[in-house]
């Protein structure tokens, strides 16, 4: 049964973790696309920015966490969310809004967002350097080990505290986003604007408020994703383009402009990545003991070597563009 535990640790838990991160990024990208009609390339850097903000706050108030028994960074996350939302709205006002007012082509906005990416990267590296950091400053990471109830396995299922928090945050975020979009006035205005911006404007919807709330939602989600990812692994300033491709691929898999699709797409991309990198040879090991010499199954059998992980979201993207450009949930075609 050790093999099964190994599979759960390496595929189910890791896939769910990375899938949640991609899902939170993809919701933001898809919302920005449906309201502002451009692909936001600076999204991954908002993630780094959010994590970095949390890091700064954590170093400022290192004792806030232990007081209530949670990691300090997690306690500081809501504050970082507020700061990042302000930054996102500010970036929109200074860099994207003037271009929108000039009625430029959407691709020019994409290019401007690349400019913003580079600026954020420059600033983060200027202040934080290029090394990786640990978000746990005073406290240490808790790791829960679950033994299976039966005696067949000696290994344990391991899950860390940030991973549990991540699952919790994702569930809360998706449910509250759903309630926001379907129950509140502003959420309905958002959906109206995503369907037809001109009609929404003449119906008296405050489009500026809708744009602002879109940025706030996107910034909150990226901050949460960035912080929890860095809590689980480490805070690295060079996340940028490596995480951007999976996020876009998740957005397109789910159907652009489709928030629930983005969640599904995030998990599809996350699980595909872990399944492709997983060494299937491990699962054959117990079989090999019963097989004759000539029919031995290979002990090392991964679809993609770990160093080529970046190719997986790309091939998912290409496959979906060829077979179903609208995505799984029939979103818009760009």
């Amino acid at each position: 049964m050790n093999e099964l535990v190994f599979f759960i640790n390496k595929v189910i838990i890791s896939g769910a973790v990375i899938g949640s991160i991609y899902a939170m990024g993809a919701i933001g990208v898809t919302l920005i696309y449906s309201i502002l009609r451009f692909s936001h390339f600076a999204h991954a850097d908002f993630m780094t920015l959010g994590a970095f903000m949390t890091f700064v706050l954590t170093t400022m108030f290192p004792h806030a966490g232990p007081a209530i028994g949670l990691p300090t960074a997690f306690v500081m996350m809501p504050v970082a969310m507020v700061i990042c939302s302000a930054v996102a709205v500010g970036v929109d006002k200074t860099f994207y809004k003037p271009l929108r007012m000039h009625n430029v082509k959407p691709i020019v906005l994409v290019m401007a967002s690349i400019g913003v990416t580079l600026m954020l990267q420059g600033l983060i590296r200027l202040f934080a350097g290029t090394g990786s950091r640990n978000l746990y400053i005073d406290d240490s990471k808790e790791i829960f080990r679950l033994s299976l109830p039966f005696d067949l396995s000696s290994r344990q299922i391991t899950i860390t505290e940030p991973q549990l928090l991540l699952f919790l945050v994702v569930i809360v975020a998706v449910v509250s986003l759903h309630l926001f979009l379907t129950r509140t006035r502003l959420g309905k205005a958002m959906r109206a604007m995503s369907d037809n911006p001109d009609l929404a404007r003449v119906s008296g919807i405050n489009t500026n408020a809708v744009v602002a709330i879109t940025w706030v939602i996107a910034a909150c989600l990226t901050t949460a994703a960035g912080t929890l990812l860095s809590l689980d692994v480490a805070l690295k300033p060079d996340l940028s383009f490596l995480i951007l491709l999976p996020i876009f691929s998740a957005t397109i898999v789910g159907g652009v402009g489709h928030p629930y699709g983005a969640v599904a797409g995030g998990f599809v991309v996350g699980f595909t990545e872990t399944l492709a990198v997983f060494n299937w040879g491990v699962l054959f090991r117990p079989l090999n003991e019963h097989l004759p010499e000539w029919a031995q199954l290979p002990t090392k059998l991964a679809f993609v070597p770990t160093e080529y992980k970046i190719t997986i979201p790309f091939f998912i993207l290409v496959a979906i563009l060829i077979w179903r450009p609208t995505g799984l949930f029939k979103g818009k075609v760009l």
Partner: protein
Amino acid sequence: MKDHSLKREVLLFSGLLLLVLLIMSVMGSAYGIRMLVEAACYSLIALGLTMQWGYAGLFNAGILGFIAVGGFMSMLFSYPVNEDFWHSDMPAQLGMVVLKAAVGIAIIYALAKSARWGMPKRLQTPLLVIVSAIVYLMLVNILDPVTRTIESEAGFIGGFGFPVWTGWTGWIVGGALAGTIAYFIGHICLGLRSDYLAIATLGIAEIIKAFLKNADWLTRGILTVSPLPWPVPEPVDVGFVLARALYLSVIVCLIVVTYFLLQRALHSPWGRMMRAIRDNEISSLAMGKDVNKRRLQVFVLGSVLMGIGGAALTTFNGIFDPSGFIPLNHTFLIWVMVILGGAGNNRGAIFGAVFVYIIWTMSEPVALVIFDLVRDLGEKWFSWQAPADLDSRALQARVFVIGLIITMVLRYAPKGLIPEKIAQHS
């Protein structure tokens, strides 16, 4: 109006000449010529980008990948032959892998076309997926031991060792390979909105880089390959200034030829059609133009130029280092060159490339000086302890400046310094 723009161009180009002369006199001619050669290689790449973005409005965010492909091919063709590899049975083993791969691809291709011979559609797709997965896994399993033997016994496969004067054949092949890759990406993405092309090119650039970095048997990976032979006499034979000047003349010849071909193309019916497609896709469709095919064409041609430019740049640097290709230097710097110089205008692209490259090389010492100043003042006034890696952070600050230039140019001077000339036919 016409005189005005001509005067502006003359002014800008003479200013550029003065700047070059100033740098030559201050930093010495060997340094100045090196900078000019690199700027010329960048001009070639910028011409490729101005074709894609300026003529056709295609957003290529993965220039890095095409540059790396060009650099790799030029290394493969010109680097001396590795006797350890060719005098063993490893080439034969590698040949067997290639042969098996060809058989595997033929089977998959036949299966993909099997609907014509009466294979039911419901059966075909699952069968295709399963067979592709099996073929792929088998190929990986037979390639793996071969590459490991090559890495342990011969290092890497080495180059083809083409003689000095024919070293540029690698450049052409590099351009052709870049064009082939562009064809496949364009084929998938160009029918959709341009955002998809940006995402896909960004992805393919990272993949090409990951491959070149990790395929040690082919490229020596992070160990890097150097020195790469030049297609002109080398500095050790004729001295730095003369060798670099000869190299510069080769690149300038390439630029002149490319420039005249592009000017002809831009002012021909083909060029007008490209601009029509860029400015109003629907009306060009209504005129019966095959928009996607023309876009694919210009995307491939632009990428070929990028491949050749990348090959020239890598050969000049004399070292093939896959981790040295970074998005900032090899993608976004070129974007700044093209949009600052003026997209859709070949002279604008060349001006932008040379001008921005000079600023870029000069900004390195300037950034270091500024940060030294900040460190001194900080220590004196606030007794601030500067971090140890301040110098590397100073260079990171240039990332911010590039980003700022992109957004500012898009907002305040979207047409660039030398705007595209729009002919009015009344």
